[in-house]
């Protein structure tokens, strides 16, 4: 499955007003549950996972988090995207007790473990692509975000 098919416009949340990353997880998690992408155990599993293995990544031009949890809590594969109106504090992946400010979140919902490596490589290519990052930062609506994600600069990215 081409990875851009995992994105859906109704799973994109632009400029969410919230004060903590947990509030953002709740908002995204409840939509995912309502639309049958995840099981009822998803939100608590996601939160717990993020506490133990935080997913904040500091890249050259953007800070991003990739919250995710085990396959068993996912019903149907997806990638949801959310941006917060204000940067929120999340733990930095691989660093003890370090938090970073993140406004851009990609929630990874994968059911097949063998596609995970390729998906992560694909996303890292996007996250390190200057034009993609600029497009994401400047998108003002869910629709604009969706266009940026669905049509990354293919010749450069893929």
């Amino acid at each position, binding site marked *: 499955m081409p990875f851009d098919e995992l994105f859906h416009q109704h799973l994109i949340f632009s400029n969410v007003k919230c004060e903590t990353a947990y509030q953002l997880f709740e908002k995204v998690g409840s939509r995912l549950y309502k639309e049958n992408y995840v099981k009822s155990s998803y939100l608590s599993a996601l939160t717990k*996972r993020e506490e*133990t*293995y935080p*997913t904040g*990544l*500091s*890249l*050259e031009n953007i800070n991003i988090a*990739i919250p*995710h*949890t*085990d*396959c068993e809590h996912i019903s149907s594969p997806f990638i949801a995207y959310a941006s917060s109106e204000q940067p929120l504090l999340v733990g930095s*992946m*691989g*660093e*003890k007790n370090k938090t970073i400010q993140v406004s851009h979140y990609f929630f*990874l919902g*994968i059911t097949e*473990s063998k596609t*995970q*490596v390729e*998906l*992560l*490589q694909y996303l*890292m290519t996007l*996250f*390190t692509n200057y034009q993609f990052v600029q497009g994401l930062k400047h998108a003002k609506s869910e629709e604009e975000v969706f266009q940026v994600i669905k049509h990354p600069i293919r010749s450069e990215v893929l």
Partner: protein
Amino acid sequence: MKRVIVACGSGVATSQTVASKVQKILNQNRIKANVEAVDIKSLDQYIPQSDVYIAITKGSKDYNIPTLNGIAFLTGMGMEEETNQLISLLT
């Protein structure tokens, strides 16, 4: 042959992604080494037979073999420094 291990506890296969990037870098530099992604839970049993450990998950434990920062290979931030260290450890 020298052995490099990469470990994470993550469900999105961060360690495999980093391992394949590291293997590619070593191939480009014509350095022969085995790069393996292992589960953080079985890390202890791999350490004694390995030359370099590339860490992705924050560990509560320090190991007695050279340890590099795996996130650098994922994000590209500080990758050159880690690459140079890795090459000098393997040659």
